[in-house]
């Protein structure tokens, strides 16, 4: 009897522990799956279903180093577009990216999707981060 009670308590603890752990994961999944839809609607035509870009016209989204180095600028790039020469995956690009006036939460979701797909792994980009980054757009 004692063993049974201990067993049940142990199982309960494991279940509770697992569900506590996954709070962040649930948030990540929510951002990620929502972001995948935003990506399909706003980004995929140009950047491709695998983030592959298009030849020397449109940069790929597979360069994790570029994304990490420009982490704080990504929200602004989506909102205001991008002009001028950049180097992505060791290749130069200088065609214009259109501005896309989507909401901060959509930006957070799509950035979570992009920075955790195509070989990237940067974790959740939260709404809070996006709102802060948008204040500092140049």
């Amino acid at each position, binding site marked *: 009897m004692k063993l049974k009670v201990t067993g049940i308590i142990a199982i309960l603890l494991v279940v509770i522990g697992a569900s506590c752990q996954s709070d962040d994961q649930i948030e990540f999944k929510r951002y990620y799956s929502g972001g995948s839809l935003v990506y399909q609607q706003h980004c*995929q*035509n*140009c950047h491709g279903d695998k983030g592959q870009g*298009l*030849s*020397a*016209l449109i940069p790929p989204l597979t360069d994790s180093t570029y994304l990490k180095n420009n982490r704080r600028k990504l929200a602004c790039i989506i909102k205001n577009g991008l002009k001028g020469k950049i180097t992505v995956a060791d290749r130069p690009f200088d065609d214009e990216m*259109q501005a896309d006036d989507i909401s901060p939460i959509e930006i957070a979701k799509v950035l979570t999707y992009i920075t955790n797909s195509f070989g990237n792994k940067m974790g959740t980009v939260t709404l809070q981060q996006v709102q802060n980054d948008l204040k500092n757009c140049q």
Partner: protein
Amino acid sequence: MKHLWIGIIIITLFNACKSNTKSALPILGYKTPVTKTVDGKAVTDTEYATIPPFKFVNQYADTITQKNLDGKIYVADFFFTTCPSICPVMHRNMLNVYKEFKDDDNFRIISHTIDPKYDTVPVLKRYADKLGIAGNTWWLLHGEKGDTYKIAKSYLQSVSEKNPKGEYIHDGFFILIDKQKRLRGTYEGTDPAEVTKLIADIKTLKAEPDQIAAK
């Protein structure tokens, strides 16, 4: 029950045979009956819609007319280089067609710009270079807006002027034309599966007897 199984097997075999014998693509567009006098007898034949004569300039500033496409199977589409919506995905898919047939001198791709004011010859050349295409397989064609819009109708395509938001609305189809300048297929250029079918259909078309015979 046994009869049912036999029935199913027969139907399956029958369908398998049918799909194997498919070797010709349909001919699209308006058909008109034409009556001619041959050896003193009136003979009625079907005349299919063809692409009319045209004159445009490609990315190398060479003049391109219908004569440059004589004896060639080709694919046509309509685009513009600053297109933010469907063009990148169309040309990402068209690159697959290009790669498949770029060594075949009897095959061409022509992309008409519907924004000739911005897409001048140097702009088209720069686009071609950045897209990674070279040689004469894929021509980007510049011409008078009226001429481009008129020929679009021959390809059953709808293109129009900028809307109030400053966007061009145009169809994203790839149109397959045979050596007799007849329409043989239309494919949604934004759909990779349709473009895979286009590549298969080009191979089917190339093997048709009247395509092999045509010069």
